[in-house]
Structures are given as structure tokens and as C-alpha cells.
């Protein structure tokens, strides 16, 4: 009842606009969120509506619709007689929140079709022409996970010998990439692009925009499975990059089972053991970083990086191999790898004044990344280890299994403390933990903020706390 009435709150129109904004005005995501939501009183939880011009216009339109609906109620009541008037009135009142939620999409579609799409088309067309004429070697990165990591590694390493540029943040859509292209000076030697996949055909579209010369496929897994429905479709979409490249070099992460399944002759496989013909040995990792030896082609490179975890060896070595193939010297590669450091919120270690080490891995929300990180946490000795997670989102039909597997691997790793956030998926992690007869402590919190507030009071000097993934409001 309380949930039902929350649709009649004065703040309801604002929450709808917030949901649109937080979904980046994607109607599909907005509707999915809308239908998932039961309690509209607590939609703005982690963030709040930012009053951008677009949001303000939508807010005004939303209130206009509210007035129209109220007018309709009065007109209906006056123009019809009982009992029809009462029935119609009841129907209008009951349906009003839903009508409003859908009606809000009308101005959005009009805005998109009449203004946004034509402008974007111009921007993208310009970028395509510009990129076609650009002499730089273009590297395209596709995959369900790990794109930003390898982009950053490549950028850091290649910058040692070449003028290298890559879009910042997670600019991996046609528009994001095109905006970045407009900032290029034209004298870059290498351009690196993350190719975002949200729906089938996305990568193909992006390839036509950036014209990659080298491809990196970081892996295929359950990330965005809710959109792709099957892993096969995800793999096909990711491999649109390989389709485009044909006989040009494609590096494929051999540690991703689904990615490797689709490799073709001529693809270069990278893993913690090797990259194509290059062999890797002496792999070591701890809280200080990761090191290994890369040998082949008569050369041996002793490499060390600030990145944590043996799962980083493959991408680091692949970046080294690509750099060598593009003419960088072994010394340049060595110095580039040395400069690679944990990126924001991706297994980024921070030690506080009381000596507690927090590993912020809140941007890592995919099963392969999680597996790698649990493996890393398990490898740490002489410390009490904490694993804090709300679970993963958009795992579709694999939700239960993916989370049970997280639970099982946590139990097998002997992580001492598990902090779970109550939601629709974390009980599956608990199931997995129980299946493997987990002996440590499981602590439950109502939301992530409560857990983050409690953690400083639960930890002591020397503890290592891993924050795995973070859920935005859409998934609360």
C-alpha cells in the first residue's frame, strides 16, 4: 500500500525525471528501471537529480502533464453521470502515475528526433571523415570487461615512444568517440579506442567509425547479459571487431573461456603464460604490485607494474608485445610498464592512518574480474581479509549461478570476513558460501552506505578490505 501510494507523492514527477537522467535518457533502461521499482519514495538514494537544462524542461513538462491529468479528472467527473463518472474517475486516478511515466517519453523522443539525432549525426560524420584521413595506427578494444584497464596500460606504455591519444573516462559510444576525435591535433602516432557494446551491431558500427588496424578482445562474459540474453550473442557482438579486422592483428584474452572459444586462425592469444610467441615467467604479485619476465625474439624483459593481481600479467604482456611490434624499444616498454598504476576504483589500494588497506574495486562488476580479484585477495598472507559486495548487476538468467560461484570461491579462498549488502542477489552468494561450508564471518547491511560507514569501526591495523562493485540507484 505504502509503495502504491508513493506514486502519488508530490515528488513523483521529479523522481521520474531523475530516473530518466540517471539512465542517461535511454528509454529502454528507464522503462526497465521503472518497471522494477516498487517504492518510489526512495529512488534518489545515492545521487540526486542534477538540474541540467534538459532535466528542467522535462520537469516543467511533467508538471504540465500533471495539470492536464487533473483537468481531465474534473472534466470527466462533470461531463458524465454516476456511476460511469465514478468508474472513469477511479480509472484515471489509478492510471495517472503510469500515464505520466510514459507521457514523459514523448517530449524526449521529439527532442531526440528533431534536435539531438541530427546534431549527433553531423558530429559523427565529421569524426568519421577525420579519422579516415588520420595517419595514426588505430587500436580498437572490445570485450565484456577489462577494456578500460588495457586502454590505460596501452596508453601508458605506448606513450613512452609514440604520441598516443585515447578518449578519457568510458567514452566508448559513437558520440563519445566523435567528441574526442574533435580534440585531436592530427599529429598523433597512435589512437586507442574502447568500443562499447550494449546491443548487437554496436561494435560493427564503431569499427566503421574508427577503422581499427589492431584489435584487442579482452573477454566475453555475463556483463550486460540482460541486454544480450545469451553469451553467444555477446560473443558475436564482441567478435564484430575481429570480423572487421580480417587478417589484421587481433589479440584475444586466453583467460576468458568464452572469448577463446571464438578465436580464429591468426589471432594472437594472451594470458599470464604467454602472448603469441612471447613466453612469460616468474609471475609475482602482492600489495606492492606485479612483476614478470617476458621473453622471445632473442630478448628478455624484466617487467614490473604497480597494478595488482596475476590477472594483470596477460594485459600487461599484451601491451608490451603490441608496443614492441609498433617499434618501441625493450627499454621503453620496461619503463612504460613500470609507470602503469592502479586506476581509479579498479583494485586501487589506499592505506588509511590506522593502517587499514582498502582495495577499491568498485568499478569492477563482472564475473571474470571478480574471480581474478578473489584470487588476488586469497594470495595475500599475514592479514585479515574483508570482502564487501552488493553483488553484480545485469547477469540475466545466469544471476543465481554467477553469485553462487562467487560464494563458493570466497569460501574456498578462506577470506575471513564477508560483508554482504541486502538485495536480490546477495542471498545467492550466501548459498554458495554455505555450499562450501564457509567458516568465516558473514555480515549483512541494508545498504552499501551503511556498510561503508561501519567498516572503519570493524577493521584494525593490517586488515585488507576489498570493496567489490557498487550499485547505482537503478539497481537498489
Amino acid at each position: 500500500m505504502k509503495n502504491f501510494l508513493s506514486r502519488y507523492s508530490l515528488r513523483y514527477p521529479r523522481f521520474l525525471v531523475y530516473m530518466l537522467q540517471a539512465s542517461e535518457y535511454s528509454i529502454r533502461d528507464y522503462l526497465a528501471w521503472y518497471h522494477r521499482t516498487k517504492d518510489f519514495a526512495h529512488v534518489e538514494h545515492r545521487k540526486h537529480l542534477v538540474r541540467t537544462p534538459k532535466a528542467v524542461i522535462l520537469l516543467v513538462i511533467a508538471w504540465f502533464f500533471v495539470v492536464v491529468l487533473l483537468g481531465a479528472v474534473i472534466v470527466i467527473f462533470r461531463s458524465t453521470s454516476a456511476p460511469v463518472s465514478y468508474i472513469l474517475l477511479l480509472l484515471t486516478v489509478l492510471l495517472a502515475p503510469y500515464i505520466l511515466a510514459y507521457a514523459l517519453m514523448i517530449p524526449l523522443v521529439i527532442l531526440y528526433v528533431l534536435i539531438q539525432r541530427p546534431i549527433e549525426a553531423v558530429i559523427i560524420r565529421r569524426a568519421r571523415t577525420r579519422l579516415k584521413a588520420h595517419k595514426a595506427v588505430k587500436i580498437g578494444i572490445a570485450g565484456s570487461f577489462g577494456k578500460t584497464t588495457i586502454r590505460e596500460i596501452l596508453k601508458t606504455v605506448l606513450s613512452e615512444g609514440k604520441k598516443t591519444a585515447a578518449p578519457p573516462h568510458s567514452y566508448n559510444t559513437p558520440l563519445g568517440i566523435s567528441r574526442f576525435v574533435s580534440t585531436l591535433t592530427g599529429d598523433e602516432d597512435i589512437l586507442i579506442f574502447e568500443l562499447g557494446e550494449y546491443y548487437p551491431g554496436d561494435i560493427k558500427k564503431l569499427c566503421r567509425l574508427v577503422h581499427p588496424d589492431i584489435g584487442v578482445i579482452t573477454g566475453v562474459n555475463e556483463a550486460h547479459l540482460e541486454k544480450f540474453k545469451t553469451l553467444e550473442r555477446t560473443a558475436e557482438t564482441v567478435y564484430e571487431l575481429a570480423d572487421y579486422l580480417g587478417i589484421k592483428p587481433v589479440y584475444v584474452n586466453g583467460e576468458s573461456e568464452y572469448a577463446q572459444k571464438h578465436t580464429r586462425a591468426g589471432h594472437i592469444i594472451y594470458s599470464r603464460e604467454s602472448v603469441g610467441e612471447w613466453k612469460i615467467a616468474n609471475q609475482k604479485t602482492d600489495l606492492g604490485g606485479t612483476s614478470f619476465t617476458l621473453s622471445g625474439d632473442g630478448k628478455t624483459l624484466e617487467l614490473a607494474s604497480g597494478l595488482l593481481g596475476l590477472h594483470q600479467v596477460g594485459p600487461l604482456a599484451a601491451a608490451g608485445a603490441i608496443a614492441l611490434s609498433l617499434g618501441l624499444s625493450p627499454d621503453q616498454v620496461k619503463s612504460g610498464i613500470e609507470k602503469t598504476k592502479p586506476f581509479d576504483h579498479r583494485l586501487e589500494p589506499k592505506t588509511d592512518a590506522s593502517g587499514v588497506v582498502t582495495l577499491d574495486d568498485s568499478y569492477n562488476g563482472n564475473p571474470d574480474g571478480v574471480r581474478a580479484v578473489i584470487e588476488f585477495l586469497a594470495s595475500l598472507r599475514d592479514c585479515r581479509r574483508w570482502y564487501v559486495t552488493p553483488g553484480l548487476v545485469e547477469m540475466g538468467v545466469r544471476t543465481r549461478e554467477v553469485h553462487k560461484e562467487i560464494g563458493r570461491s570466497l569460501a574456498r579462498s578462506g577470506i575471513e570476513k564477508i560483508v554482504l549488502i541486502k538485495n536480490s542477489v546477495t542471498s545467492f552468494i550466501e548459498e554458495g558460501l554455505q555450499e562450501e561450508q564457509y567458516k568465516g564471518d558473514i555480515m549483512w547491511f541494508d545498504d552499501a552506505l551503511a556498510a561503508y560507514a561501519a567498516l572503519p569501526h570493524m577493521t584494525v591495523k593490517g586488515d585488507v578490505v576489498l570493496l567489490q562493485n557498487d550499485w547505482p540507484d537503478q539497481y537498489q
Partner: protein
Amino acid sequence: MKKNIAVIFGGRSAEHDVSIITAHTPIIQSLLAAGQFDVWPIYIAKDGSWYADRAMNDLTYFTKDDFSARLARQKKVRLLFDNGLQIISPGIRSKTIHIDIAFPAMHGTFGEDGSLMGLLRMAGVPFVGCDIFASAVAMDKVLTKQVVAAEGIPVVPYVWFTKNDWETKKDQYKQKIKALHWPLFVKPVHLGSSIAIAKVKDDAALENAVEVALHYDDKVLVEESVENLIEVTLPIMGNDDLRLAGIERPLNKTEFFDFNDKYLSGGKKTGGVNSQYSQIPADIDSALAMQVEDFGRRTYHVLGCSGIARVDFLIDSATKQVYVNEVNTLPGSLYHHNWKKVGVSGVELVTKLVALAEEYFTAHQDLTYTFTSSILKSAGGSKIM
């Protein structure tokens, strides 16, 4: 079922604001994080009014600009002290909450000096920390020295007097003070957090400092200052079996560790007291450390401390002489930053203190306080004394 725990803080004391910090960081926040308690904040305002609103579990209630306005609108709470402590929430839908355990978080006068403990004892509710007797003695720096010295533990030579003593027999006391080895420290006897403490090097400064100290207190302590000084402090937890935290050395910039160093400089960043400006464990040689620990345990014991306390020491690094300086029965923020460094988290600290309080309460319930007598029957008779 969760235990109802009342955290009592604020109070009519110079350390009112510090108490708010201690109550929240770590006490309330850790109790909430522990998940085993229903936490009821009981806030005593500077004017002595009592409030109990769960919104006060959040420290920001007290730090927001409109705090005074909000407090003015807040309804006062009523309390019952017979047969346990009960909170009666104000309003039409009045609710009575039986408190299972009290967690005093009041520094200084009326709180840390044993007054609150007396009230809680009478109510018959278990409470965390030192009982009335240890609290009252520890609150008086002179009494502390007298008790500790009687146990053979070294203290710095001192002279003490009351306001009346100073007004009527000033010359006599000044003679005594002259015999001390200068420079000297002048301290109000009952105040904590180093308020109104001054280091004096000559007679004029002494007069001035005594005047200031007497403004805050009616009993004043004048003691020798320790040369080549290393100040250390040792938080201790337990009733009979004691657990020691790390020996901590404040790395203060000023000549001595005053209120600003203790609370204002370190507190902001970490939300706690004195965490940025100290060294744990203190870099002193092991023989000194052993002596500190030994004196710490003995001082805790002779004062009859229970739950938690902190013993402060002065060390002359040249002569290797260790003196007990004073005892604090409610260390600011429970010195949780220190406990954390020796492996005790905030949650473990507060849950252990709650368990110790229950243990202490149970042990003392077994003591006999009443007995049947026929004395009343004899009342009105010839002579009963």
C-alpha cells in the same frame, strides 16, 4: 532480541562538545555497526536539559548550522530511575523503553567525575566504564597523586591548595611552592582536557596562572615540570584481567599537550581524538616501556578502575624516571585509534566494554547491601544510638 543501550553524552561541563564527539566516534557508530544493539542517544544540553531522539545518533545533528534552532523545537525526554533506567519518549504516542545497559560518554564535571555513575548505580542499571569511586578519585588530580603515591608509584613533587587556602594563607603556600624545582605547572584539580593549565617560570606568571585556574576550580595543583620530558599515555581495558593498548606518545608542537592539540588539531580529519599527532607504539626503550606498563596496571588497580581508563605518564628521558601524572576514566573517543593499532576494532572495543559492564554489574549484584534489622521497631524508644 537486540539490547537497548543508552549512550549518555553532552552535559554541563567544559568538555560538552568533546563528549559529543566521543559519544559518536566511536561509541554510537561502533554500537550501530555491531548490529546487536538498539542505540538510544541521551543528550544532556549545556543548560542541563535531557533529550533522547534517535536522530541524535547521527553526529551531523550537532554539527549543522541550525542545531540550536532544532534543539529548541526538540521535546525533552522523561526518565525513570526506579528498578532500572527507562526512557519515556515525549509526545502523544509516548513510548517507554527499558534500557538494558548505559554507556556514559560524558567528559569532565557531572559525567566523568562519578556523578552520573552514582545516578546509574541508584537506578540499578549496568553501565560501561569506571564506577563512582574510581571516577571521583581520578577526577581529582591531587587525590589521584595521593592514592598512587601511597602505593609506591612515583609522582612529580607538588603543592595543592583550595581557593580559600590561597586567599587566606597565600604566603604560606607560596613558600611551599618556592621550594619546588621550577618551572612549574599550574592546574585546576578537577578539569580534564588540559583546560586552564599553564607552565610558569616566575612568580608573576604563577600568580596569574593560579588566578586563571581558580576561575575554573576551587582546588589547584602546582607541580614541578619534568625536564627532558617524554609524555606517554596508556589506555587500559578490563575489570580484573587487564588488556593494554599501545603506549602512545603525543607528537605535539606546543610546549605541552593542551586542549587544542588533543581535540582540535587531530579531530577534524578523522572524526576522532588525537589520531594524527601521536606515535604508537611510543619510541621509548623497552625497560621504560615495561615500567610504564607496570605502573599503568598498578595505578588502574589501586584506583579500582573498571571497563576502561587511560593512565598518563611523564618521563624524564635523561634520568629514565617514570611518573604517573593522572588517570582519565573516559579517554577521549575511547582512544579507539590506539586500540585499532593493537588489533581491537571499534566494534570489538564497544562490545567488549559492554560485556565488561555486565560482568561488573553481575559481580556487584552478588554483594549484600541490605540486611534485615529490627532497628525501626526500636525507634521512638529510649535511645537507639
